[in-house]
């Protein structure tokens, strides 16, 4: 009896080891498997599954698996995959420069055919370069505007939309006085997307994060910007505690609930409101406010497809990428993502006729972009997300701390 059980324990152990290895061994020969990790704009998994199935039907020797990951975790996920030797073939997310700097990526002209590359909007392709060579293909873009709740403004008796900081401050005070229970401006400086809120405010004061080959996060303009935001917060013209207010769960949710009058919103905000309980908000938009005497700007944000060399699937990647950019497939991609600005000229021509997108497309030439071509940008973005909220306590100190991180980043 004893012997039998001992043998069975050995068998169980062997089975445990075997099962750990067997999982990987069953692969059909001659079929190349492309692995892609994609950010979740809206509900993207059904779209990608469907597209991948269509692609394999047309190309039976290539199988594509797309893993859709939320924006909050995609950077961590991709980094973990690379660090553990499971590098994906294609990634769709918000940055590329660090991977380009480390030589992990195919060039844009290796990723897609010349025909597809020629169709990409030049401005966006320019923002996809590292040391003058494009290492990513833009997938779509967004621009920002100042959105407002028309009903609240009407109640407060605001007739003219503010265009400068001074005017905005006055209007916010007016709302606070006349419409109790509403936060005049929703200011999300929590980690999720703080770099966007910071960049567009700073841009309105002529401030940037990177200039002439140097990080300039603690520039005079940026300190002034954060000091102004501190002033708004101190007067309770924003929701309390912007430092822990994330864009989606806090600021946009307050706005959707009719509890905030103004918000810095991206081109996809109207669609988001519809899906998240804000369908009844009487929405208006205008260009974002600038400091007195400064030019108003918009913040352009673009995301990317990147292709990794690690698995050597260059030919298959090109086929897949070209397939994504085929006009009908690309239109479906934009539709699934929900209300973004297209990255191709052909789709852009259609979008320019769309009344929801047209004003944003017009704004793009004057847009400022993140310094996404800098290898250290992901680290700098992380530092801004982490610490910019503390600038509401002490602008200079917080910006100095971020500047130090930016200079130390590899």
């Amino acid at each position, binding site marked *: 009896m004893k012997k039998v059980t*001992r043998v069975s*324990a*050995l068998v*169980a*152990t062997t089975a*445990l*080891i075997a099962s750990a290895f067997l999982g990987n061994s069953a692969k059909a020969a001659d079929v190349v498997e492309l692995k892609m990790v994609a950010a979740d704009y809206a509900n993207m998994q059904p779209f990608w599954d469907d597209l991948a199935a269509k692609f394999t039907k047309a190309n039976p020797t290539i199988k594509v698996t797309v893993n859709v990951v939320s924006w909050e975790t995609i*950077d*961590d996920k991709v*980094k*973990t*995959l*690379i*660090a553990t030797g499971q590098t994906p073939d294609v990634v769709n997310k918000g940055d590329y420069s*660090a*991977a380009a*700097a*480390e030589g*992990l990526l195919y060039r844009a002209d290796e990723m897609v055919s010349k025909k597809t590359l020629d169709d990409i909007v030049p401005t966006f392709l320019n923002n996809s370069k590292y040391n003058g060579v494009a290492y990513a293909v833009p997938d779509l873009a967004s621009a920002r505007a100042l959105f407002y709740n028309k009903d609240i403004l009407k109640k407060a008796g605001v007739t003219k939309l503010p265009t400068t900081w001074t005017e905005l401050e006055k209007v916010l005070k007016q709302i606070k006085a006349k419409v109790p229970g509403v936060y005049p401006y929703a200011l999300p400086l*929590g*980690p999720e997307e703080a770099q966007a809120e910071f960049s567009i405010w700073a841009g309105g004061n002529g401030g940037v994060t990177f200039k002439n080959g140097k990080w300039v996060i603690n520039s005079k303009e940026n300190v002034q910007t954060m000091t102004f935001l501190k002033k708004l917060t101190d007067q309770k013209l924003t929701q*309390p*505690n912007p*430092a*822990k207010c994330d864009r989606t769960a806090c600021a946009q949710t*307050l706005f959707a609930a009719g*509890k905030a009058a103004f918000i810095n919103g991206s081109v996809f905000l109207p669609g988001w409101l519809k899906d998240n309980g804000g369908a009844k908000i009487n929405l208006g938009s205008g260009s974002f406010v600038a400091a007195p005497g400064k030019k108003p700007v918009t913040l352009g944000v673009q995301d990317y497809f990147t292709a990794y060399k690690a698995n050597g699937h260059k030919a298959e990647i090109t086929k897949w990428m070209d397939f994504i950019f085929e006009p009908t497939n690309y239109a479906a991609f934009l539709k699934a993502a929900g209300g973004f600005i297209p990255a191709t000229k052909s789709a852009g021509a259609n979008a320019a006729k769309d009344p929801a997108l047209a004003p944003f497309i017009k704004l793009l030439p004057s847009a400022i972009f993140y310094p996404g071509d800098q*290898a*250290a940008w*992901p*680290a700098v973005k*992380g*530092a801004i*997300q*982490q*610490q910019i*909220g*503390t600038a509401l306590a002490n602008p200079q100190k*917080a910006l100095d*701390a971020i500047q*130090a*991180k930016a200079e*130390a*980043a*590899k």
Partner: protein
Amino acid sequence: MSGRTMNKSRLGALPWIAPAIIMIAVFVVWPAFEMIRTSFQNVGATGQSKGWAGFDNYHTLLQNPDLKNVLIRTFIWVVGVVFFTMIISLPVAQLLNANYPGRKVVRWSIIVPWAASLVMTSTAWKWILDAYYGVLNEIAIDLHLRKESIDWLADTKQSFIWLMVVAVFVSIPFTSFVILAGLSTIPNDIKEASHVDGATSWKSYRHITFPLLKPSLFVAAVINLINVFNSFPIIWVITQGGPGYETDTTTTLAYKISFRDQDVGQSAAMAAVNFVIILVFIGLFLKASKNQEQN
């Protein structure tokens, strides 16, 4: 024949413990080894190794401006959470040990926060404490304790206290059950004897029960020290260690260095330092338990 028996016994318990050994090797020893190896490597922002870095990562870590405050906070976190967990668990265990109808239900209900996933519990607490929709605010307003809702997690010190409250809340079940196990080993005749000798309930607890509980208290304290020190989900779910680094412990800081500052090497160095701190804890535990045995 005797030779075969010898062989068999030499193989001994190995077949039985082999699965456990393999699990430990794969899931504990190997990751720990990889972590320490990574801490001596220069790792790029994408997660790729660029070769050996010597002690550079440790050097950068020591110069990290946020490290000092985070270490102090980690100390407060560990000591505070473990202390209050123990203090509260003692009477809870007493309650679980007492005989009354419905004891089973009470025992079950105390197990729940322990059985639930930490991320789940933390998410629930995050919403309980929410400034706009939190149920704690609702209750406070309904009971006329407050006129308007407040943000319980606004002030960094206050939110750190709330994090500790949640950590104590999730640590109590395990701790009180360890103490309960200790209580059930105390023979009733000793207590009865003390009553016969005229000891009051409190005196009997103070001089009989409590000293006999020491071994289980000890085990509970040390396991809690390790658990609380390594605790990640509570802080991450509720505040992400923010704003800035104001509610971080070394565990969440290690994560942030890796995934916000994009410095995997330095993060591994932080994790290795954490590992050393834990080893010191375990060393102290072994030493103290030896002393206990000798006493």
